[in-house]
């Protein structure tokens, strides 16, 4: 991969990966670091992609793994989502994001992948190493929790 290719991949995916990392880590700085590390890992692995879909899926899985690793650190357990400011211009959207971030990650991440990235439950299952049925169950439960929150 030359610099141009890396640059193109970065531009195509940076926002997506950043959002995913933010969804996992609930923190802009950590999300930024995780996003960078995702691309570093792509370079390190000398990864080549068959298609844009392959590229997108690989980066999502890689970013997920990096975020999960970060979350295992003890100091991550005390990070408060209230520390995030400047996320979104609309107060209503910001409040909904906070609600989303309060969901357990097993519901939060599938919701992000389903409703923002447009993956179906089977694709999400492959990415997360879970069955289609599990993902569908998590999505259902996530929707219920969100429904309760937003009335």
């Amino acid at each position: 991969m030359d610099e141009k290719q890396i640059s193109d991949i970065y531009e195509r995916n940076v926002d997506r990966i950043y959002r995913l990392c933010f969804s996992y880590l609930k923190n802009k700085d950590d999300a930024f670091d995780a996003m960078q590390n995702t691309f570093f890992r792509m370079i390190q692995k000398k990864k080549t992609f068959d298609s844009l879909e392959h590229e997108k899926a690989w980066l999502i899985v890689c970013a997920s793994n990096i975020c999960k690793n970060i979350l295992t650190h003890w100091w991550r357990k005390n990070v408060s989502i209230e520390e995030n400011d400047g996320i979104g211009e609309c107060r209503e959207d910001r409040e909904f994001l906070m609600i989303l971030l309060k969901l357990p990650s097993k519901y939060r991440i599938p919701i992000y992948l389903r409703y923002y990235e447009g993956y179906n439950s089977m694709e999400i299952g492959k990415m997360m190493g879970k069955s289609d049925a599990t993902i569908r169950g998590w999505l259902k439960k996530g929707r219920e929790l969100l429904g309760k929150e937003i009335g």
Partner: protein
Amino acid sequence: MINMEDNIRDKVVRAYDGVVLDNALRQSAKNKILAKERGRGKQKIIYCIVAAAAVVIFVLGNVMLIRLNLGHNKEAPVTETSSGGDENKSKDNHSQMFLADIRSREDLDIFAFASNSYVLELQKEFYVAISCYDENGAECPPQSGRTAKIEYAYLRFGEQEAGEKTYQKNFAVDTLTVQDTAWKNIGAVYINDDWYEVRESAKEGVDHYYNIFNITSPEKSSYARHPEDAETTEHIRSNVIFFVAQAEGENGCLTVGRIENDDDEAKTGHPEIDSRQAPDYVLTYAKVSGAAKIKTSSVKSMGEHMFGDGHSLEEGKDI
């Protein structure tokens, strides 16, 4: 239900749309990532260079080892260098093998490096390689009470008609040609704790004289006019002049004497230092004391001591 899902999708999209990476951060991250890739590129080049160097060193090392091993495993050739009646003595053939195996300047370097022998460059591209043996025939540096025999080979490397590297070697009593002078080695002698190689100028029509090359201390090398010429002999670079005389006959006795530099007036009665059968010997069971200093594995320029211009001859000495 569908409305509920659409509603959630709509809210999720709007909520995450607000999670945007700052442009400065985005560019900074991109620069870092690209810089990392460039660094990896440089790293790759460095790895390639290091790997190539390692391969070259490995190959050269193996070639050296193979050559050395071949040298140690081959049969020793029969050379004309003999040690009187002691040819049958057990001896280490390693050095002989190396002498016999020298085919190029590189071989000579390996020889000088890998054995107890030493190499002197007598003239440009003209060398003598010398090995010493102890009483048991084992190769050794010349040492007091140990060195029993010296063997040597003359080697010349140069381009001939075909432009190929060629070599010429002469063992012990072979003649060799240097410029216009044919030098015949007629043996080596032990004088005052030093080994001397005696060479005879054999060119027709020129002054007949000997070169006494001090192997132990090359700077003491000197020339001596053949006594029969009865002409002035001047010593060149040492305070001591040696003379050489060889008795008539095939096995005539070779005699080496010494003339003190500051004793020009005394032309007779100089001490005879060594006398032995010549030329059918090199050195057999002669003893050397304090001669270990000759050991050197480097190529030194000794041409000036042997064949350089500027030397004159002192009057010879009657025997």
